[in-house]
């Protein structure tokens, strides 16, 4: 497949890895620990594991898996809210497949569905809108979830519903913004990070400039990166080069997709429909000012939170023994969580990080088997 297979070429990968290996010691310099590079985005984590990239990297580089997975940072209370909405008579609750398995305090959406709620998976918010058109006597709610990549699609869908005057469609808005989340990570006193791979698809919407504060205020180099394995290797190479050459810049590895200024129409739609929340609690990130997103008053009629009069989600903390928050912030490795691979496993996930294929716990769970096998053989 064009524009995918070319970026999965093993020969080129080999060369890139050689280059990284050559530059990494120079880049690392006098640090006593390896260079800590955070791939912010769960999509990158997925690529790392899917292609076994970490095993190719020199010991001078250590990848830190970031919180860029919208279901991973979703507090349990939000899943509970979804279930509450889905349980209303007449509601069709629509969602991306990702959110179906995420555990709430007592059940996931998948379980709510098994218990009789009409929960439907869709590929696009527009498909949820089509369901609303086809079921005028039902209340169709779409679980709007995701970083800036997804925000234009939900905003445009809401605007379309508004144009058509649909009264039975609303969004349960749980979007979250990337730069604010990054800032929260950077201000965390526990964290030690040397640089970032920035999410390519968020960036195609917001452009490159929103990351300027990372290099300017926190002196961490950052490369906007695509999702094919060569994209990641090239971005890592660009990053080690920055270290080696003493630069600290926002660079764009993913220029074929990410325009400097982002996407004008997408940003317009976001600005029209959404505004930041004053308080918003995310798992592992606590209350991040400016990161949470809500629907503007103008479009209150399409806001499931208002329509179903949800209580402002009480700040529910995870039980003490579940360390999802620490893993998300990158201050703990999955296997350091006492639940890891014991009470928490992919068949029976206690935290979202064990659910999603992008969740680091799920990834390490599978990876751990491989590592163990390698030890044995």
């Amino acid at each position, binding site marked *: *497949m064009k524009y*995918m297979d070319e970026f*999965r070429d*093993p020969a080129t*990968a*080999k060369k890139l890895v050689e280059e990284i290996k050559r530059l990494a010691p120079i880049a690392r310099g006098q640090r006593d620990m390896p260079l800590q590079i955070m791939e912010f985005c*769960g*999509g990158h984590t997925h690529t790392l*594991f*899917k*292609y*076994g*990239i970490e*095993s*190719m990297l020199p010991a001078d580089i250590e990848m830190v898996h970031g919180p860029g*997975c*919208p*279901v991973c940072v979703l507090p349990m209370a939000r899943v509970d809210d979804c279930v509450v909405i889905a349980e209303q008579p007449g509601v069709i609750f629509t969602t*991306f*497949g*990702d959110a*179906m*398995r995420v555990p709430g305090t007592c059940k996931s959406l*998948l379980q709510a569905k098994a218990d009789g709620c009409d929960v*439907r*998976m*869709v*590929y*696009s918010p527009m*498909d949820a809108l089509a369901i609303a058109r086809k079921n005028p006597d039902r209340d169709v709610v779409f679980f709007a*979830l*995701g970083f800036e990549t*997804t925000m234009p699609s939900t905003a445009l869908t809401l605007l379309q519903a508004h144009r058509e005057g649909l009264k039975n469609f609303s969004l349960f808005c749980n979007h979250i913004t990337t730069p604010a989340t990054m800032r929260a990570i950077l201000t965390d006193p526990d964290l030690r990070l040397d640089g970032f791979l920035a999410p390519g698809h968020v960036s195609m919407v917001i452009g490159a400039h929103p990351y300027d504060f990372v290099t300017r205020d926190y002196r961490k180099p950052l490369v906007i990166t695509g999702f094919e*394995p060569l994209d990641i290797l090239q971005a890592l190479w660009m990053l080690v080069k920055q270290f080696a050459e003493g630069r600290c810049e926002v660079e764009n590895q993913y220029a074929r997709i990410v325009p400097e200024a982002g996407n004008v129409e997408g940003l317009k739609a976001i600005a029209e429909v959404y505004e930041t929340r004053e308080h918003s609690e995310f798992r592992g990130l606590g209350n991040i000012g400016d990161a949470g997103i809500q629907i503007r008053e103008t479009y209150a009629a399409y806001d499931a939170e208002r329509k179903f009069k949800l209580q402002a989600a009480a700040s529910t903390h995870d039980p003490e023994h579940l360390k999802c928050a620490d893993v998300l912030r990158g201050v703990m490795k999955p296997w350091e969580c006492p639940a890891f691979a014991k009470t928490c496993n*992919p*068949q*029976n996930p206690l935290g979202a990080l064990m659910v*999603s*294929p*992008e969740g680091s716990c799920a990834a390490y769970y*599978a*990876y751990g*088997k*491989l590592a163990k*096998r390698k030890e*044995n*053989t």
Partner: protein
Amino acid sequence: MNLAGTITLAHGSGGRAMHQLVDNLIRQTFTNPLLEEGEDQARIPLAELVAQGDRLAFTTDSYVVTPLEFPGGNIGTLAINGTVNDLAVGGAKPLYLSCGFIIEEGLPLETFARILQSMRLAADEAGVQIVTGDTKVVQRGGADKLFINTAGVGVIPAGFNPSAGGAQVGDVVIVNGWLGDHGAAILNARGDLALEADIESDCAPLNALVEAMFAVCPDIHCLRDATRGGLATVLNEFAERSNVDMVLKEEFLPIRTPVRGMCEILGLDPLYLANEGKLVAVVPITAAQAVLAAMQRIPEGYHACIIGAVMEGDGHVILQTAFGGERIVDMLPGEQLPRIC
């Protein structure tokens, strides 16, 4: 029989309407001497069975696919081929099938007749006969249009004994062609993801293929059709039961472009997609080329290829990626869900 109208509860009542449906449509479509007896059970001379082998193979599956009809097949062809295949992968010659229908009232009679017809054709193709059956009708909303259960009996020739626990280090892993076609075709045919793709189910009987394989290698170690859960699930069963590792080479895995495309769009892994005409065999390396050659002479095996090997280990499936890495291909906890993040 007049095929205007729909199935109603009367067709499952045990009365005249049911007898007419059974006699004039079902029995007439499947017609064969054993079925014609019309008793509560088929009666099969044991002498005929003993002449073909030393063990009776007995299996069952229920079929619940949505939509009922899809490119490459329908619930009826699945019901025949699925059970034929579950017999075949035990080394058996499939002989006789039972067939239980559970019908939601309101199913157009014409749809039902069409599905029966394709069951008959599939049975003929596989060389099996439907010799006993049952029909139930449930209320609207009590089932999803039509479910079919088939059970099957066949005879296993002496000496054939494939088993999920039989894989040995050094064996090779063979599949008979493109992976994931059925799962992708169904996702596509369901229409709720609004995708359009030219993908057909691979639904097919594998007994002729299996016969050809055993003819050149009576010592096939493991043999399974890769249905629900896909290739990954079957290989995990083999690996766990044999306590070895199954190591696959990504670039050997035969996956059609539109299936790949659909997987990329939806974030799915084709290794977990269902197949309905694919088998996975683990054979001694010494027999591999002969088995492969035998397979490639049969239509269902034209695209047969080696995809990996059995290595020492403790029950894992490992994929060596084309990119040069390695990853575990675990059994999934549940169903693969399309994702966007």
